[in-house]
């Protein structure tokens, strides 16, 4: 069996302190890979992050060599990383966030999460657009394998870039230890929700119904449309509240404007970034979880919400539809009227559907990080030619 073992280096340098989205992917993938018997994992990290990665994957080798700041780190990836990979004698290197060492002597696998840098460049800081557009084009031509988190992303990659690499679609997983339909300890959800202030001295644990959105407040999430849709139905459901949980990305002022225009500031609760342990409690307690994103490479919160048994309202034609299918209530992206119709149906109680909930739980059960690691292993083996 030893001959079948693969030695893989995983670049974890781009993961921020409070990881969401692509950062969460790298953390969960590293954890799942570190538990595989057929893989020797070498994590390449920033020095500052040593203790964090030791917690994630205590058994795996950790090399802390990368500089802190992004421009320096990207230069380091090109100039210094190839020699490090040689020294570590890895079979394959994986860049989990678009970039790769272009002159590495070992086969490289790159994850391309989405094509928003091409499709909607105005959603990103200008300095990032050219950098990542170029990185994606390079990956498509020079990586041995490109991993995409959805077929939707793989299709868009083919639309925008000349591809010489093999493309492997590996759906993300959901951490079923955290995201499940029942709380582990009775009363713990209420305890967690009581830490979320809900205005006028109250908290989310006071039993009034709420709709939940979890995600960074950034243009692609289209939270303003959610606020407008909520405004249209709020009069018929005077108790209902809308929780927008997530850090403010750039462009969050559009959310502020929409909330101000709604006149419902007291019923729209914005706790900011909420901790890992609060999110499952939110999903389990919400009347429905609404994820109105215009564009996602995968859209993990929708899957996490399904794993908690929550009714999910999300957008059609998206990666979320690819994963959730008929286990979610689908509305056209950006369509306030359709979204308010969906909110009305869940708030009025007609949106609850045990069969749909079960389909969601079944889909979540298949989407473990171990299953995602299996697909990644296929990508690594293909890249290594073994």
């Amino acid at each position, binding site marked *: 069996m030893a001959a079948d073992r693969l030695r893989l280096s995983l670049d974890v340098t781009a993961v921020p302190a409070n990881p969401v989205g692509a950062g969460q992917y790298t953390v969960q993938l590293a954890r799942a890979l570190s538990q595989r018997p057929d893989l020797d994992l070498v994590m390449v990290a920033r020095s500052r992050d040593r203790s964090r990665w030791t917690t994630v994957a205590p058994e795996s080798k950790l090399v802390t060599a990368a500089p802190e700041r992004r421009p320096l780190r990207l230069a380091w990836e090109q100039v210094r990383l190839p020699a490090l990979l040689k020294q570590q004698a890895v079979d394959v290197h994986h860049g989990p966030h678009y970039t790769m060492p272009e002159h590495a002597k070992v086969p490289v696998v790159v994850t391309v999460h989405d094509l928003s840098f091409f*499709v*909607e460049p105005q959603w990103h800081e200008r300095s990032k657009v050219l950098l990542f557009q170029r990185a994606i084009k390079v990956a498509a031509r020079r990586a041995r394998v490109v991993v995409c988190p959805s077929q939707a992303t793989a299709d868009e990659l083919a639309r925008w870039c000349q591809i010489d690499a093999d493309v492997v679609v590996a759906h993300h997983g959901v951490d079923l230890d955290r995201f499940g339909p029942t709380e582990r300890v009775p009363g713990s959800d209420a305890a967690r929700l009581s830490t979320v202030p809900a205005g006028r001295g109250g908290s989310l644990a006071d039993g009034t119904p709420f709709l939940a959105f979890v995600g960074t407040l950034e243009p692609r999430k289209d939270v303003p449309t959610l606020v407008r849709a909520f405004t249209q139905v709020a009069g018929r459901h005077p108790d209902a509240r809308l929780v927008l949980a997530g850090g403010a990305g750039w462009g969050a002022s559009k959310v502020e404007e929409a909330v101000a225009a709604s006149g419902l500031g007291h019923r729209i609760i914005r706790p900011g970034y909420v901790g890992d342990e609060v999110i499952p409690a939110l999903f389990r307690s919400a009347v429905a979880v609404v994820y109105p994103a215009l564009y996602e490479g995968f859209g993990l919160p929708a899957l996490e919400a399904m794993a908690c048994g929550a009714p999910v309202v999300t957008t059609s*034609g998206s990666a979320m539809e690819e994963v959730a299918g008929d286990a979610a209530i689908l509305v056209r*992206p950006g369509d306030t009227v359709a979204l308010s119709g969906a909110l009305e149906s869940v708030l009025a109680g007609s949106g609850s559907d045990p069969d749909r909930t079960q389909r969601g739980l079944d889909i979540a059960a298949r989407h473990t990080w171990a299953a995602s690691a299996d697909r990644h292993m296929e990508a690594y083996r293909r890249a290594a030619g073994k």
Partner: protein
Amino acid sequence: MTPTRVLMVVEQLRRATPGGIGTYARGLLKGLGELGPGEMPEVELLASRPRRRQPDQEDPMAGLAYPVRNSVLPGPLLTRAWDRGVLRAPTGFDVIHAVSLATLEPGSAGLVSTIHDLLWRRLPDAYPPRGRAWHEAALRRALRRADQFIVTSDPVASDLAGAGADPDAITVIPMGCDHLPPPDLEAGASLLQRIGVHGPFLLSVGTLEPRKNLHRLTDAYQRIRGSLPEPWPLVLVGPGGWGEQVRSGPGVVLAGMVTPGELSALYSMTQVLAYVPLIEGFGLPPVEAMVFGTPVVASPLPSTAGAAFEVDPHDTGSIADGLLTVATDTAVRSRLKLAGRHRAGELKWSTIARRHVLVWDAAASRNGGRHGG
């Protein structure tokens, strides 16, 4: 069950300028290639004798992943032989699928004919007289010969039923739009440089012929040119057609024919795609542009399904307003980008190919019944 054996008549793919029907044939073949092994019928292609070419010219049908049956006859003679029924379809197939009005006697096979439009009837002045006569005769032959019809939109289905086709034998299947290669940005940039376009521009794509209404488009452009943030040029892409040509004017730049990679690049680089034909069976360029999230100003068309900013093609003022709004209003632009990408996602050639297979199955079984098996 053995997969249906299908012979696709794809004479358009032999031509130097395959046009919209060529795009349809190629897209359909691409979509078929993406189907699973169990879903995939056996497909062969039929076309005329390959032309003699210069050594550096590639046969446009080379590289298709399907067996090709080349006739001994060159294109024009072959079509005439089909028209008159002198030459029948080769035997050994369950279904013959003519991708255009040029049908042939199917022998014992079922015949499927795709009718892209009957616009020569609706807008006779937009067609040269000889073309009208051929289209009319070809339609009569298709009505006589075909077991099943495929049309790309509801209006064409009504026109075809009005012309005498059995409504139950008509299936509406839209065109796909995911057939262009990735943008060749380098080639696109050097093309723009060659025609003197620097910075942002507006784009229109299509054969330069009267039906495309280009004189109203250019008039509308002249009206709003001064109101744009800068006098952005209007780039017109497409082969020369017939009849009155484009009125050139300040800022109007003819790019002629471009390669598919250049076309993708232009779609992805332009501020706006304007496409305002008087009438169209489907209207492919708008949805090709939507693949790249480009905002579109268009006449009411079957292809766009509300995802374009609609203007009245008979009203220069309406076109002008549409152009200016979509070029400059960021809220409108982002709404159109979103709606466009959503629409483009609905029009995948693999989905469209799957729907063709159902029609082929119907034609094979229906024909088997009618001819007594």
